[in-house]
């Protein structure tokens, strides 16, 4: 479904991604794991067009997407739930959800999808008229995910969805992500919370200093000695 081929990405003159290639198959949960600064977020930003690869290409269902305008990606069915949630903090919960369903197809089913999101996160329904900036961290993450779901995505990319959340919420968020996949959306997830991520991921890639150093299934990774010492603290 998604194919990243040999991309190099720069911040100004500094190269941060070196020849990274990976792919995500339909209805998989694929995870990129790695330490802070390994380039995980950079890769997601490159896929969603906020950054451009200096070389290499990004293909979605066989079509190159690294050359089209970033705001058009959502129409193709790709949505990026960004790091630190990036909600529209002065808008209400409901307005944030509306912002997720701007494309014609999603707009037509806006109210239906909203109900589905509210069913997934009942807390959001209670707070639908509240200003997003006044929500708790967990609620904000739910809203960020809900806003992404509103676009009826076929590929959903999560950047550090568990960041700054209490352990019980982390578990809830991961369950939701699993459920999203079970309902047919492909998931690409970037996380520092390696253990939880690997336990729901079908496959994972380990990223170190902007290069992919290892790949395998989630289980293989959990058993791998290098992963264990470097990321699981065992």
């Amino acid at each position, binding site marked *: 479904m998604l194919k990243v081929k040999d991309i190099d990405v720069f911040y100004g003159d500094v190269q941060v991604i070196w020849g990274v290639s990976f792919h995500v198959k339909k209805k998989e949960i694929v995870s990129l794991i790695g330490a802070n600064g390994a380039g995980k977020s950079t890769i997601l930003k490159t896929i*969603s*067009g*906020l950054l451009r690869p200096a070389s290499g290409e990004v293909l979605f269902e066989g079509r190159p997407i690294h050359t089209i*305008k*970033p*705001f*058009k*990606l*959502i*129409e193709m069915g790709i*949505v*990026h739930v*960004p790091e630190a949630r*990036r*909600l*529209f*903090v*002065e*808008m209400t919960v409901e*307005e944030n959800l*509306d*912002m*997720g369903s*701007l*494309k014609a197809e999603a*707009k037509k089913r806006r109210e239906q999808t909203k109900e589905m999101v509210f069913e997934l996160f009942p807390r959001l329904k209670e707070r639908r008229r509240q*200003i997003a*900036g*006044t929500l708790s961290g967990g609620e904000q993450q739910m809203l960020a995910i809900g*806003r992404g779901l509103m*676009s009826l995505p076929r590929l959903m990319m999560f950047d550090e969805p568990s960041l700054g959340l209490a352990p019980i919420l982390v578990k809830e968020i991961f369950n939701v992500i699993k459920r999203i996949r079970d309902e047919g959306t492909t998931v690409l997830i970037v996380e520092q919370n390696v253990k939880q991520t690997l336990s729901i991921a079908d496959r994972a890639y380990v990223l170190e200093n902007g290069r992919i150093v290892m790949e395998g299934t989630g289980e293989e990774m959990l058993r791998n000695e290098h992963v264990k010492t470097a990321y699981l603290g065992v």
Partner: protein
Amino acid sequence: MDAVQVEVLLQTLIAGILLGGLYALIGIGMTLIMGVMKIINLAHGELMMVAMYLAYWLFVLFNIDPYLSVFIAAPLMFFFGMAIQKYLINPVLKVESILPENQVILTVGIGMVLANLATILFTSDYRSVPVEYASDAWYLSDFWRDSPVELSLSVPWSISFLFAVVITVALWFFLTRTDTGKSIRATAQDMDAAVLMGVNVERMRLITFGLGAALVGAAGCLFIPIYYLYPALGGRFTLIAFVITILGGLGSTVGAIIGGLILGIFESLTATYVGMGWAPVGRFAIFIAALIFLPGGVASILRRQRLGK
């Protein structure tokens, strides 16, 4: 206080609110542009001046009432604003290496060109539109025979104010109820997130600049029956809009409305109790006071209240 003093105070407050409504309309345009573009549009008053000349000539040549001109001048200003954004500001935005301040300086230049073009074309004469209702007024005693105080309400001032209110309400509906309006607000709050949600940010910039120009253009038409017109008036109103934007809190629409009203009332009070010529002094005194004591503007109070609940 005797009846006369009460009358003077009430009359002053009414004048202030009427003026403040128009100021708010000017301020909203600037604050919208500020929110989305992150720059102060220092050609704002000059855009208003252009719309005023439009209304003036529509009246002189075709005898079109200034209040009707709102419906002609505002759409024209919308396209004029979009053209400025597209052909003048966008090319500067694309050069990443230069400072954002350069976009502000660009708007100063645009303002100068407009003001001087107007001087060349129309000379620097003061003009006004001789509408027949210019000095009509409603009197409180006509409605309430035994009223203890006598108040008057100028007809053109009140019509202009009503127009300003209607336009502001319409804008509020646009910004809160339509997807385009929400996208404009989203772009102002978090541009990257807006892109990720599929907002065409470049288009929002065009629409916002157009909208800002249309709003200040409408305000210009509303000022025509109650004010005079000359090419250099733009600079004055740019400053007024700037003060309102700061007073309201950069980028906040509600803040701009409140800021406009505060400024209108304050100027009116200074004019009555200190002296006509002191109104601008009052304006800048409140500007400096806002910067010192309330750097976040009215918006910071609103925000605190909302988060506190």
